[in-house]
């Protein structure tokens, strides 16, 4: 009798061990490549949590292709070369089917060769400067024509702005964006003397003279606006200084491309009310999908006060698209998914549809919002339809003639329509 019990117990044990082994082989691994320590942890930790939530949610619905999804989280610690190492680890060692990650452009540039060499897939969720289209990267954030250009159009046509301050942090995204904007403004007949360009170092905290310059520049009698590509931490002292020197949004509005709900949650927003931001998603948008997403986020993170923001929506869209593409292809093989995902449409959180374009960018609505005193945005303007992302800007001399399409027969991210040649280089 005793022996029998023992045997049954052993069998049960063995059985369960086998089952768990079988289950381990039966999962699809998804890589999450976001910094959890170092300077960028402030922005990227939230995106890691978003991915975990999306994966958990998909597993509750029964997984994908009959298998469970398994997140593999690594920490590249805001260290650009480490991003490449961790990406290699995810693809070669962990054999992930796709990776969701990166925030800064420099981290994306660092992992790009790895993804191309090992032929895997990366979903990149942040607005960026454009001028890139890789076979292995899907850009779910905004290209300049989906954020910067419509924002300037709004200021020019609806607010009547005649003088422009382009203020940015000194690195590649602001420099490229401002180059595009400068060319665009000059094309619209704005004179050289009515554009003031200013760069500041990362984490700049003493804005007194610059704000005072902006005040002087704006007191000429012509309506002035600031287009800000100031990044991250430097925004708080900048807005504080604006408030203290009593520059209100009615006099000189500031439209920012890097300030979202998450950044505002760390600031006392009273002096900021009325300043603008251009994004493709606001937490305050009235849409059923958005309400559901916010509710899920709050119950996942167990904190009613946490906000949602634009890059989170980008991951939401990217993940849904990847799931649809895998279902369509019937496999997680990168080559097949890359073919299947082009043309896939999924609902976004603002009540529309996002479609993956052949240039690996997606369609998005552009919203302009004014900051409210509760740290949320009130949408004051939006594009009437979806704007497709343009990888190569039409306003830069070097990239005007370049066109990207990853569909046969072109299959090229850098095709020059004038010389009819594909340079083969993606960045």
């Amino acid at each position, binding site marked *: 009798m005793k022996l029998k019990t023992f045997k049954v117990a052993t069998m049960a044990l063995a059985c369960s061990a086998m089952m768990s082994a079988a289950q381990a082989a039966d999962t699809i691994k998804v890589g999450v490549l976001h910094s*959890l*320590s170092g*300077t960028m*942890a*402030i922005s990227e*930790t939230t995106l890691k949590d978003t991915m975990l939530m999306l994966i958990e949610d998909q597993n509750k619905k029964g997984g994908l292709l009959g298998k469970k999804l398994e997140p593999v989280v690594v920490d590249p610690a805001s260290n650009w070369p480490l991003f490449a190492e961790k990406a290699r680890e995810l693809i070669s060692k962990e054999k992930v089917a796709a990776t969701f990650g990166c925030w800064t452009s420099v981290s994306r540039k660092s992992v790009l060769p790895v993804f191309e060499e090992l032929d895997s897939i990366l979903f990149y969720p942040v607005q960026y400067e454009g001028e890139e289209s890789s076979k292995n990267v899907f850009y779910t954030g905004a290209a300049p024509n989906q954020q910067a250009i419509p924002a300037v159009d709004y200021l020019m046509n609806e*607010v009547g702005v005649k003088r422009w301050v382009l203020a940015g942090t*000194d690195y590649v995204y602001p420099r490229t964006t401002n180059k595009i904007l400068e060319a665009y403004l000059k094309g619209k007949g704005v004179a050289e003397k009515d554009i003031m360009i*200013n*760069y*500041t*170092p990362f*984490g*700049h*905290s*003493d804005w*007194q*003279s*610059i704000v*005072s*310059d902006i005040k*002087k520049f704006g*007191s*000429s*009698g012509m309506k002035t606006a600031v287009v800000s590509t100031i990044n991250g*931490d430097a925004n*708080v*002292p900048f807005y*504080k*200084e604006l*408030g*203290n*020197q*009593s520059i*209100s*949004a*009615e006099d000189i*509005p500031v439209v920012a491309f890097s300030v979202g709900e*998450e950044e505002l*949650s*760390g*600031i*006392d927003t009273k*002096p900021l*009310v*009325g300043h603008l931001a251009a994004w493709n998603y606001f937490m305050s948008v009235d849409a059923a999908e958005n309400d559901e997403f916010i509710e899920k986020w709050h119950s996942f993170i167990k904190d*009613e006060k946490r906000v949602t923001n634009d890059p989170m929506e980008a991951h939401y869209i990217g993940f849904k698209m990847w799931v649809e593409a895998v279902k369509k292809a019937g496999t997680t093989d990168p080559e097949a998914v890359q073919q299947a995902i082009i043309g896939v449409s999924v609902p976004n959180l603002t009540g529309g549809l996002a479609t993956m374009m052949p240039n690996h960018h997606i369609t998005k609505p552009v919203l302009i919002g*004014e900051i*409210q*005193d*509760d740290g949320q945005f*009130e949408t*004051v303007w939006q594009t009437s339809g979806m704007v497709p992302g343009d990888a190569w800007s039409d306003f830069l001399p070097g990239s005007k003639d370049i066109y990207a399409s990853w569909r046969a027969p072109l299959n090229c991210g850098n095709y020059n329509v004038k010389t009819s040649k594909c340079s083969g280089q993606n960045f």
Partner: protein
Amino acid sequence: MIKTKLLTLAVFCFWSVISHASNETLEQAFNLLTERSFDDKSQAIKLIAESNHVSSVKLLESILAGDLYYRKKDKRIVYAQKEESKLRIFDALTEEELDLVGKRKVKKIGINNRLRAELKLAISSLALTHPDAEVRLKSVEGMIGKADATMVEKLNGMKAIESDRRILEAISAVIAFSVLADGTREQQLDAIEALQGNLNPAVLSTLRQLGETTESVEVRRAAQKAVKNIESQVDLYGYIETLFFGLSLGSILALAAIGLAITFGVMGVINMAHGELIMIGAYTTYVVQLIMPNAIGLSILVSIPAAFLVSALVGIAIERGVIRFLYGRPLETLLATFGISLVLQQAVRSIFSPLNRSVETPQWMSGSLEINSLLSITYNRLYIFLFCLMVFLVLYLVMKKTSLGLNVRAVSQNRAMARAMGIKSEWVDAMTFGLGSGIAGVAGVALSQITNVGPNLGQAYIVDSFMVVVFGGVGNLWGTLISGLSLGVLGKFLEPVTGAVLAKILVLILIILFIQKRPRGLFPQKGRAAEQ
């Protein structure tokens, strides 16, 4: 008797008709307010302002402040007060309490910048009849360049009944400005005369235009003269402003460096975790504000001793736990304290999350002291400048007048001799390090008012702090103060010419050149001990 009664009745009827009419306009306005379109809301704001209802000003102000909502189910306009995560709503007309509702049951009356400007103008035009002279003055001053024809008409009427001299002057300035650009020749000349010495930027730019474009030679000459007059003042105030900017930046540099002047300057410990001690001070401010959310103004004052204590204790723990084993081995100290700084950063990330924390600025520290329309000094910078001087003074007295100060100076000059005289050098080391760390914590309280409170706060200031101490002369408190202030002023005078990035580089190059020439900094320590 009957007559009186009749009269009363008539007056009553008349009054009720008026109030009925204004109620009707308000109702019409309320219907428009619930529309999505900003044009409709703009119409509603005009109606509310015109209705002259007793609660017009309150309504307009609460739209501006974002306290006016409407209930989704019956579109009733309500005031709302936050109560935990819910809203208590009151009827906008009768002010009777209605309900306690969830956030998604009501919708805020959203406004944009155009409406905000309209609201402010409407409120200030209603404020023209305010009993308080200061309110009237402010309202008139805000109208320059914004008043339209009807407003000028209104101001003209006001001239007759206003008695305050300053307000009358302000009214004439607004009226003069309204004819400056396109009045007759006589009007323009009078206007230029009236606006002589007015520093409002709108006046200057219009005068400038007038001086270049207008046809009449007389007007042009008068305008040019006025412009020249104003511009010389603009230049003067520009210099004063830059000087203040420089001093304020300098005071922050000095404040961040002054703790380091003790640990590095006096003790000779290269403490790479100094920035993190500043960060701990800033986080202490945040925690104190969490504990006393209803007294933000007071919380800053409480934070100063609290931050001093917390940072000093952490500093003493670092000294006792790590640094005391490494005296005389600067390279190892540098590496060990760098490691500690990383540990402290990640600890803060784990405890408080990697997101920045919001530290509120008390009312008395926000806004600016307006000296005239060209020069205004922001209060937070002014207070931090004074605070820096105070901290310096206290520290100076501690070092010169107390027995702790005496012991510290004795140990730093000649450790062996001091020990021979019976000074417990280990205890002095711990106290000195604690003092330096505590001062860093106090600097953190000040920094929490002007920059982000996040795990990376310290990193931004560590290089600058070392720069200030080395430039000022190691071991000299005066040197630290002077070098901090002069680096700040230098940077600010360079910035308009070269831009912020280049200014920073130039300052660094200048320091390197200076150190080549005078390796001991501005104020080198003298004496035999310093020569070793």
